[in-house]
């Protein structure tokens, strides 16, 4: 508020007592060493096992530390609270905690903090949307039955040995289970969470490098550095203030005016000017997000051998390079496999796995589609939600690309749906008649997370109900495999099955982008496209 302070006071005097709350209460945002950052109103209450989107995830990332943490640069899972995690058979795990960790309210982090939190997260009566993360643990079917009330309050697979040790028994072999433990849903919870839940939700308390100072739901949250933080990654700034923006354009404008320090979602319309606007204070790094087109295999027309050829043909008819360059200006990269570059080659990313099926070749595309008997139903309708994420632009571009390849102006049209909720409703209700937008943001950087939830028979995000015995078998074998390299190779073989059937058309890898003011340095985004707040230096 440059030079407007007088005006504000004048206005407050005029306004009188009735509206006095709005006046004088300023000064909480910004300040020396504190950075302001754009935010969105979290959709669900801020409980670790109930937060499944980036905005709530941002806060959890600052306030909590779990057994593992994903390295912000490499994405590798590293021990944080865990001293070591041992297993003789990929099914029974013994987890030993490091000493010296506490919550910011002083309570010690013990094995109970984890076991109680996980039992709460899995419990059906607690309505936690990430409950299925605990689905691998023995006894989940009792705590979270598919119908009826839960018959147990605790997972039988979890046992506390002593203050710093607990054991986990899974209901199947899952060799990479320890690497999933960096996900926010596995965070430990203090007693206060259970004893005074309402108060905890108003002002969550965790064991991360920041503690929450104040939380005005729907508008702002102010976090400050926790000085007694025992971990190896303490905050390099005095605090972070998250401000809710309804429109990322406004947040971007505020960064230009120096009114906001960091915007972590640069709107597509501004990408053209971002370099000159921000004088290089712009980052654009790969994130674990893959956009695909999925198909309705519950519709018999799409579940034929001919349709397989049609899908491959459609994939070849899409000019990914042109679309990513013109619409997304390099913030997305044409996909050549079904994972993400953030996994790294050792983690299972394999550029070019898709082969010619992902290369733009209109002539071959036309041939394949004709061989396969043409587009089922005669016309391709790509369904998407029109309320967020500039989906309309790329769907129209994809259709245009397909139409050009087929020399038919009416071969493909977009089918917008008003809201995300309605879109999800129709996809999960299996009401699609053609391809639909499917975006996947990884939960943890493992190749398993890009394949199993999406293509395994009956998996939670397998909205098209694709099913292939060979794929399922390979995934089962990979999960049981203790050697990491062999497991990755098996997952890649499973991925080849996806390719040969073109179960979903990979479109592009999505990057995270952020712009910031000259007050900040050391700004980086982690593979989940969340700013690494604790490393940012102010001033």
């Amino acid at each position, binding site marked *: *508020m*440059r030079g*407007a302070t007088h*005006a*504000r006071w*004048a*206005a*407050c005097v*005029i*306004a009188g007592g009735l*509206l006095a709350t*709005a*006046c004088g*209460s*300023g000064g909480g945002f910004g300040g020396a060493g504190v950075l302001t950052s754009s935010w969105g*109103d979290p*959709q*669900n209450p801020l409980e670790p096992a109930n937060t*499944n989107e980036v905005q709530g995830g941002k806060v959890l990332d600052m306030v909590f530390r779990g057994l593992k943490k994903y390295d912000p640069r490499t994405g590798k899972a590293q021990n944080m609270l865990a001293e070591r995690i041992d297993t003789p058979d990929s099914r029974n795990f013994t987890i030993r905690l490091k000493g010296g960790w506490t919550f910011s309210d002083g309570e010690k982090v013990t094995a109970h903090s984890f076991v109680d939190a996980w039992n709460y997260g899995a419990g*059906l*009566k607690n*309505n936690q*949307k990430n409950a*299925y993360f605990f689905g691998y643990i023995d006894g989940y079917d009792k705590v*979270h*039955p*598919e*119908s009826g009330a839960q018959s147990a309050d605790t997972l039988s697979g979890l046992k506390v040995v002593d203050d710093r040790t607990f054991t986990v028994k899974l209901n199947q072999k899952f060799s990479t289970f320890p690497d999933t433990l960096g996900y926010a849903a596995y965070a430990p919870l203090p007693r206060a969470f259970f004893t005074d839940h309402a108060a905890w939700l108003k002002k969550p308390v965790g064991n991360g490098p920041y503690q929450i100072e104040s939380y005005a*739901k*729907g*508008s702002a949250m102010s976090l400050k550095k926790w000085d007694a933080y025992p971990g190896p990654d303490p905050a390099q700034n005095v605090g972070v203030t998250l*401000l*809710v923006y*309804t*429109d990322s354009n*406004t*947040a971007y*404008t*505020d960064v*230009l*005016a120096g*009114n*906001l320090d960091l915007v972590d979602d640069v709107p597509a319309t501004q990408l053209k000017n971002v370099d000159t606007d921000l004088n290089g204070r712009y980052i654009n790094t790969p994130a674990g997000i893959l956009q695909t087109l999925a198909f309705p295999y519950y519709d018999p027309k799409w579940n034929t051998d001919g349709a397989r050829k049609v899908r491959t043909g459609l994939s070849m008819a899409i000019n990914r390079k042109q679309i990513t360059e013109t619409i997304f200006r390099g913030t997305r990269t044409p996909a050549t496999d079904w994972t993400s570059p953030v996994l790294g080659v050792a983690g299972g990313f394999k550029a070019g796995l898709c082969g010619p099926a992902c290369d733009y070749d209109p002539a071959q595309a036309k041939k394949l589609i004709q061989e396969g008997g043409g587009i089922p139903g005669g016309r391709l309708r790509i369904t998407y939600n029109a*309320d*967020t994420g500039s989906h309309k632009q790329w769907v129209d571009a994809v259709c245009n690309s397909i139409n050009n390849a087929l020399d038919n102006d009416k071969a493909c049209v977009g089918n917008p749906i*008003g*809201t*995300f*909720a*309605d879109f*999800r*409703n129709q996809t*999960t*209700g299996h009401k699609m008649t053609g391809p639909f937008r*499917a*975006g996947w*943001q990884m939960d943890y950087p493992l190749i398993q997370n890009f394949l199993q*939830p999406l293509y395994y028979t009956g998996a*939670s*995000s397998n909205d098209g109900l694709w099913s292939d015995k060979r794929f399922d078998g390979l995934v089962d074998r990979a999960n049981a495999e203790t050697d990491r390299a062999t497991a990755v190779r098996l997952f890649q073989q499973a991925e080849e099955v996806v390719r040969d059937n073109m179960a979903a058309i990979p479109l592009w890898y999505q990057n995270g982008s952020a712009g910031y003011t000259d007050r900040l340095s050391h700004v980086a985004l982690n593979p989940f496209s969340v700013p690494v707040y604790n490393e940012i230096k102010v001033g």
Partner: protein
Amino acid sequence: MGRYVARRLLQMIPVFIGSTLLIFVMVNVMGDPIAGLCGERACDPATAAQLKREFGLDKPLWQQYATYMGNLFTGDFGTAFNGQKVTELMGSAFPVTIRLTIVAILFEIVIGVTLGVVTGLRRGRPIDTGVLLGTLVVISVPTFVTGLLLQLLLGIKWQWISPSVRYGSFDELIVPGLVLASVSLAYVTRLTRTSIAENKRSDYVRTAVAKGLPARRVVVRHLLRNSLIPVVTFIGADIGALMGGAIVTERIFNIHGVGFQLYQGILRQNTQTVVGFVTVLVLVFLVANLLVDLLYAVLDPRIRYA
């Protein structure tokens, strides 16, 4: 007068029930809101069923509506999906929007009526033509263009204001208020101008001038009082429109008011939020209209309500 007010208040009841029912059904037609809560993933059926039960979504529509109305009369507007009470949301959103509306209405009255009087008294002169042209431009340019343009010029180029609103205090709302008021302001100017120009030639004004009253008194006491009747109607009806229709302005300037809550409620298909806010807006609209009708009697003693 008393009976008139009573009758009008009674008429509000069916309007109120009808409009809430309409909104309730409309939000419901959009489908199951639970599916949107789980991201790009199917909610597991057990949790989804549990959530539906908790929000009462498993009951038939008429029963949901009946429960909702029942709760409404006890002051319970329900809970949004993020666990916040809708009354809490209203408590934070309405004061901001009311302030924004006050700023906008003040602009309409002060600038609109003044310009209207000046141009109405000087019909055909350069100032009249100039203002008319100006209002034409304002009416034809959409609000979001004016808003973004002012934000860019005042906020970034000249740095006079901050481009977004943080606290929702009056001084921050001056520019957004002007943007919100701009189109109505132009209409108020035109309405006043026509009204003044017409009444200027009427007998009572000529009599007042012939009596030798000072020009100022003729304009303010006699001419303006009569000419303001259509303007008051317009502004009264505008209060409701401004409060509900500020979605665009509130988005541009990041104001966390009613428009913001409504927009978010619609995106998340949150019946409780949307119906609650719209219900209050409907009430505001009805009351504003009643007040306007009562104001007539004050402005024009010939109008009597029985």
